[in-house]
């Protein structure tokens, strides 16, 4: 580091958001898969301003976390990557009930994260608190589980349609989506 940089106190060189697309491309190429994944990419992005205040709104929560699956191996904190815990059908679950949700089926950072606190990837308790305080109107009667298909066509043609239908049935005003 030069004296000038030292003086103006830049952050450390690597202290920037991880470039996951490049990192994962390099990773899978090194593993011998020679057909790099094409990440979803759009030039245009829809925008729909809310038509009522938060305190009058019903909020729907979407998660990629999975309910516990019997006979599918370790799914809790520190579990190794567990493809058997994956699911490929959108699910809905009552928001006023608690159930185990895990992310063992996902490629999260297993070195620096343990997945021991589901509130770090599934903010239903924080949302309940916001509802109790009147910050939001209410929570939708169900929350929604989204499969993590590698097939983007399936996500668009099937999962998007299923989640929209469920949200419309539940008269959801606003959606919070939390990938893990």
């Amino acid at each position: 580091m030069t004296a000038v940089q030292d003086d103006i106190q830049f952050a450390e060189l690597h202290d920037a958001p991880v470039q996951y697309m490049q990192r994962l491309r390099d990773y899978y190429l090194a593993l011998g898969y020679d057909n790099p994944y094409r990440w979803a990419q759009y030039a245009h992005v829809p925008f729909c301003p809310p038509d009522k205040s938060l305190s009058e709104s019903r909020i729907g929560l979407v998660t990629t976390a999975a309910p516990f699956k019997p006979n599918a191996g370790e799914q809790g904190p520190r579990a190794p990557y567990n493809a058997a815990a994956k699911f490929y059908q959108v699910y809905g679950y009552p928001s006023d009930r608690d159930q185990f949700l895990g992310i063992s089926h996902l490629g999260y950072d297993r070195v620096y994260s343990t997945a021991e606190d589901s509130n770090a990837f599934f903010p239903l308790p924080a949302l309940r608190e916001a509802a109790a305080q009147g910050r939001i109107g209410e929570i939708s009667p169900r929350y929604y589980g989204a499969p993590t298909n590698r097939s983007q066509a399936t996500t668009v043609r099937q999962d998007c349609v299923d989640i929209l239908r469920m949200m419309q049935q539940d008269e959801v005003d606003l959606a919070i989506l939390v990938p893990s």
Partner: protein
Amino acid sequence: MSLIARHLEASGIPTVVLGSAKDIVEHCGVPRFVFSDFPLGNSAGKPNDRDSQAATLELALQLLECAPTSRTTVQSPQRWSESVAWKVEFQNIEYMSAEEIARRRAEFDKIKQVGQQIRDNTEALRSKKR
């Protein structure tokens, strides 16, 4: 998840995504995005830290209220740690031996196989219901 946000938004339901893979979410393009510069798996705040989780949710709520246009990203001011080791090390082949890479290849082949089996079973069930 970004694809779902786009679909909901286009269908009249305003959305916000909470995530930690900034480049992936922004590459796709979503209406509103709260970016937490944390290791993957902590999109809703730090584990065992209610204040962190509440602050992250509050950013999402504010974004729903105030985002002026699509592709609005807000970065949480929270820091995971002062060390950047987690950023440098995540699935970084520069830190892996040839044996480690071979082990991961075998493991991923197995993961794909198991995933495909579940996907096929789900599809078979779905076809039966139709």
